[in-house]
């Protein structure tokens, strides 16, 4: 069973619908005790990273998340929360990954947000991409990105500059794209995570 951290940052209808489609059961995590009910944890997230971090802190679940040894997957802003800092709201974050979340503006000549389907390059044999080929397209919607770091990158993507499409460190994983909206390969990625 997958536990979804329910901290009020964005709508999770699409995520639960995707888990339903691949027959993976799930429940909501609202308290520290709830973490014991699940083998794997997803931290979703849409919207403003600074505001999302504030909401996560308000739940009182941060220390428990940091101490988790179970597989954890952050999606989009949920991934960015795992970095040390975001330029969005100049917020200090969970610092699981010693990386920064930066704004695309003024760093690239392309339109912002980076919106649509972009191809990724799988790196460091990231197990999230088991059965998924290099150059597979995933659906992205974001204005902030995580720097590509040789050690922790699980997949990279290019939009005016190279950035991390996926990150991994011990039991913590993150994806910048939306697997729940990325067609059959997105569902494959969620299925892979459900089997860790």
């Amino acid at each position, binding site marked *: 069973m997958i536990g979804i951290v329910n901290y009020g940052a964005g*709508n999770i*209808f*699409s995520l639960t*619908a*995707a888990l*339903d*489609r691949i027959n993976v059961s799930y429940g909501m995590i609202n308290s520290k005790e709830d973490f014991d009910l699940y083998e794997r944890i997803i931290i979703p997230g*849409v*919207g*403003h990273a600074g505001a999302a971090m504030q909401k996560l802190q308000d739940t009182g679940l941060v220390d428990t998340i940091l101490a988790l040894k179970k597989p954890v997957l952050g999606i989009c802003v949920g991934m960015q929360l795992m970095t040390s800092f975001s330029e969005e709201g100049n917020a200090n974050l969970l610092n699981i990954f010693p990386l920064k979340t930066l704004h695309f503006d003024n760093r690239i000549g*392309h*339109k*912002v*947000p*980076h*919106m*649509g*389907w*972009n*191809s990724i390059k799988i790196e460091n044999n990231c197990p999230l991409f088991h059965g998924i080929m290099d150059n597979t*397209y995933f*659906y992205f*919607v*974001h*204005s902030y990105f995580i720097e590509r770091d040789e050690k922790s990158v699980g997949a990279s993507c*290019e*939009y005016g500059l190279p950035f991390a499409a996926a990150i991994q460190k011990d039991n913590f994983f993150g994806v910048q794209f*939306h697997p*729940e*909206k*990325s*067609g*059959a390969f*997105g*569902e494959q990625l969620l299925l892979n995570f459900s089997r860790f």
Partner: protein
Amino acid sequence: MLAKRIIPCLDVKDGRTVKGVNFVDLRDAGDPVELAWQYSEQGADELVFLDITATHEGRKTTIDLVKAVARQVNIPFTIGGGINEMRDAEILLNSGADKISINSAAVRNPQLIDDLAKAFGTQFVVIAVDTRFVEGKNYVHLRGGRDKTTIETENWIKEAESRGAGEILLTSMDHDGTKNGFDNGLLKKINDHINIPLIASGGAGSQQHFVDTFLDANVDAALAASVFHYGEILIPELKSTLRSNGIIVR
């Protein structure tokens, strides 16, 4: 590389898909959920549902339809029609819509764009603009192209961007239903002046029209309805044609 998007548009009325020729003659083209699923299987990159009767009959977009699509379809989709206030948008968000598209309500109350962007993020807010060329200028039109406003299209789109629109869906009422191609002149002019994605709409009749709008206007996405609904253009073939013209597609 970021791929150019192909977006089938499903105009819905009473839970069924319809497509008006110049927005007047409505023809039935099937069950929207079934169509949506088929399009995602064929390789559509995104879907747009427009409740075309919503504006002048005051009807709200069917929440059940949104939920059914969100449950069954694994690509992003936008809902438009009948969204007049924050509450309408919030219900759609919580029903699984990835984006909403606003047309008349934003023209009547531009502040709504700011409010929606602030509450739900710019990525959630698509501003749909119906434009028509009148006496040498492009003007925003309302009510499915029936009512001309005094607002020039280019000015309105820039204002919408500055207020927090995440994307522009521009429909040329002069081209819509003609199958003579997209209005690439106008699209290019608009695209050169904005820094958010632009979706071309109105006039698709052949695969070449899609090639042209991506090459000539460099739009981010192209939307069409009847050519897809009636099988005149098949998405896998269209993507193959685009690819052979050097256009990046998924």
